[in-house]
């Protein structure tokens, strides 16, 4: 069971894409994991034949435990299936140098897993079985980082540096050995040798570094690309004088605390009521005007983006919206969002104002018709009632699906948002 984030401790085996006995190639979708946050597709870490699953669909498995086993070419899948009983059934980590075959746990590094190389590995294994017995092994910072990049299991690498410290060269040597494809397994070369550096001699280092594409990053990549591919997106921007909103907020925050984002969610939700086309989904034949107004707000996490949803935002007061966003934001950062917190959105808001951005071109969340990009509020000289005055200005960027709605009505929607943002509903 892979660990996709610091806060992930276990995952649910949602779906298997391969059954025991089926051939798998490295990089193929193997099974789907549901975490508290989101669904992930896990790829096969090696090529061969799926020998066994250790758990059924729906089982909850701790991170780091084996989920199944793949027999490589030339190995007897049945024998391996029999031999590798799920010692992992509970919370124990599967011993690395166990039976032959590749244990399906991408959280354990790939390169060291491929092939029946246990003999070679065993020679190099510094058998520190459990950290408790020998304390922390000396591993240099760069070695630790390269090991993660190259998918090398540190526990299997013997350190040759001063005091037995594992060095970068040790890791790259191990990666080169471990990453070599097993005999007769031609199709594995493409990604089983995961790095251009694997064959490079120590000292002649590559310019390129690789960051594994997985987890949330992979999900974001797929969805963003799908969105751009499947819709006709258009972004319009406008700079709005929001001095009134700043005054409104100054007045209201004496009563309760809320952010500009809250005020904007409030405005957007009400504007969506007036412009239902912006709150719709396109099906095969029809535009479905949605009954609920559920506004998603993008939250930046270390691992990527997540979009928790304020359900029925049009029926919530500003105070309720503020409470909801605070709660969702905190839980998002703590990694405690539930699936329902991030699903059902009908329109999204994304805010880069905190990062000094004014205008940008947000990408639609798939299935939605509009997304509002929020810039920073900045004081500027502006013409106000015929004179140059100090005004608070905000740039808004609205991306919408031109298949569903045209420019003029979209612009009207944006004006409604600004109007309600400044003056509330009137």
């Amino acid at each position, binding site marked *: 069971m892979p660990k996709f984030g610091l806060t992930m401790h276990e995952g649910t085996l949602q779906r298997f894409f391969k059954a025991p006995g089926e051939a798998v190639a490295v990089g193929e979708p193997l099974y789907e994991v549901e975490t508290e946050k989101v669904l992930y597709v896990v790829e096969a870490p090696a090529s061969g034949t799926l020998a066994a699953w250790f758990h059924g669909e729906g089982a909850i498995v701790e991170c780091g435990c084996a989920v199944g086993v793949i027999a490589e070419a030339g190995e007897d899948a049945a024998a391996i299936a029999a031999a590798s009983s799920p010692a992992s059934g509970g919370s124990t980590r599967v011993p690395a140098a166990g039976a032959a075959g590749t244990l399906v746990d991408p959280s354990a590094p790939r390169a060291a897993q491929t092939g029946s190389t246990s003999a070679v590995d065993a020679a190099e294994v510094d058998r520190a079985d459990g950290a408790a017995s020998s304390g922390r092994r000396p591993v*240099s*910072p*760069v070695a630790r*980082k390269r090991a993660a990049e190259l998918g090398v299991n540190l526990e299997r690498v013997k350190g040759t*540096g*001063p005091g037995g410290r594992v*060095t970068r*060269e040790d890791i790259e040597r191990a990666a080169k050995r471990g990453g070599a494809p097993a005999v007769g397994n031609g199709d594995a070369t493409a990604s089983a040798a995961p790095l251009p550096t694997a064959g490079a001699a120590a000292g002649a280092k590559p310019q390129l570094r690789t960051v594994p594409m997985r987890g949330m990053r992979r999900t974001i990549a797929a969805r963003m690309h799908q969105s751009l591919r499947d819709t006709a997106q258009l972004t319009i921007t406008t700079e709005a004088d929001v001095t009134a909103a700043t005054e409104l907020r100054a007045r209201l925050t004496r009563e309760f605390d809320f952010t500009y984002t809250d005020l904007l969610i409030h405005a957007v939700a009400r504007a969506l009521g007036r412009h239902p086309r912006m709150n719709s989904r396109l099906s095969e034949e029809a535009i479905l005007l949605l009954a609920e107004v559920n506004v998603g707000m993008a939250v930046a996490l270390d691992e990527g983006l997540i979009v928790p949803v304020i359900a029925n935002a049009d029926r919530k007061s500003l105070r309720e919206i503020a409470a909801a966003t605070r709660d969702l934001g905190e839980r998002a950062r703590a990694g405690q969002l539930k699936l329902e917190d991030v699903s059902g959105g009908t329109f999204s808001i994304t805010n880069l104002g905190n990062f000094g951005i004014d205008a940008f071109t947000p990408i639609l969340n798939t299935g939605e018709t509009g997304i509002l990009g929020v810039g920073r509020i900045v004081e500027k000289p502006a013409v106000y009632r015929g004179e140059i005055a100090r005004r608070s200005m905000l740039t808004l960027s609205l991306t919408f699906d031109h298949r569903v709605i045209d420019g003029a009505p979209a612009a009207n929607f944006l004006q409604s948002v600004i109007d309600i943002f400044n003056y509330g509903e009137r």
Partner: protein
Amino acid sequence: MAVTTYIQAINQALAEEMARDPLTFVMGEDVVLSAFGATKGLIDKFGPTRVRNTPIAEAGFVGAAVGAAMAGTRPICEVEFASFFYCAFDQVCNQAAKLRYMSGGQARMPITFRCVYGAMGGAAAQHSETVYAQFLSVAGLKLVVPSNPSDMKGLLKSAIRDDNPVIVFEHGALGGHREEIPAGEHLVPLGKAAVKRVGEHVTVVAIGAMVPRALKVADRLAKENISVEVVDPRTLIPLDEDTILSSVEKTNRAVVFDEGHLRGGAATDIAALIGEKGFDFLDGPVRRVTTLDVPIPFSPPLEKAALANEARLEAAIRELVGR
């Protein structure tokens, strides 16, 4: 190209910049006769108004340089030995360094301070210190530590043209070092390090007079296939972090080699930089090879024992590469 010594390089830079800008002038202790030769002959070219011997009164004349800079001229102020700056700490640290900031950017402070620093044999603690570390944490100063004649000329000229207070540290033992330096206008920008030797296994960041010594050690170790990269930061403020970090990213090992003291010193500062921003590049701890934390002694064997030296650098490199 002409062969020039470190001292001649200073003299050329001063003469060229004084000829270039009539508001530039030289003041300091014995600049007319010039004890070390750096200002020799300037009196003949530029006369007594622009080449001024000062009394041995550092607070007074360093402070006067501050006032002259604020009032629109471009003083080049020589404090004979770096340790004498201690007599003018207020003028350097409270006045020259801070007045631009404290005046909200109104003051311009185009002063170049020159001084001789470092151990040159038997000068004892009050004439042998490096001193630049004492200025590292004073915001508003630039610190230049040239390691060879070519850099000395190019950096000093840049320092004189800079509108901020710059202290140029001239190592007393490098005065006779000679090399070919580029003919014509030769400027080296402040804040750009130089990779003096390319290597693969370990980066030695060497400061000032330690650079030629690091190169010697690198030559010796090359025979054993230990490949040492020598980086000369050339200016401590501004510090070219990118060149240092890029080198360590390549070699994964770093030694900082500095004649200054260990505690609160330049080596400590650079080691912290590497530890903080280059953590993921490292295959071992960042080693600092510096002078011991004692006043520099007089007697030759004691002085030798105290100072950063090639043997200690070599030992640190060997320890890092495990050979």
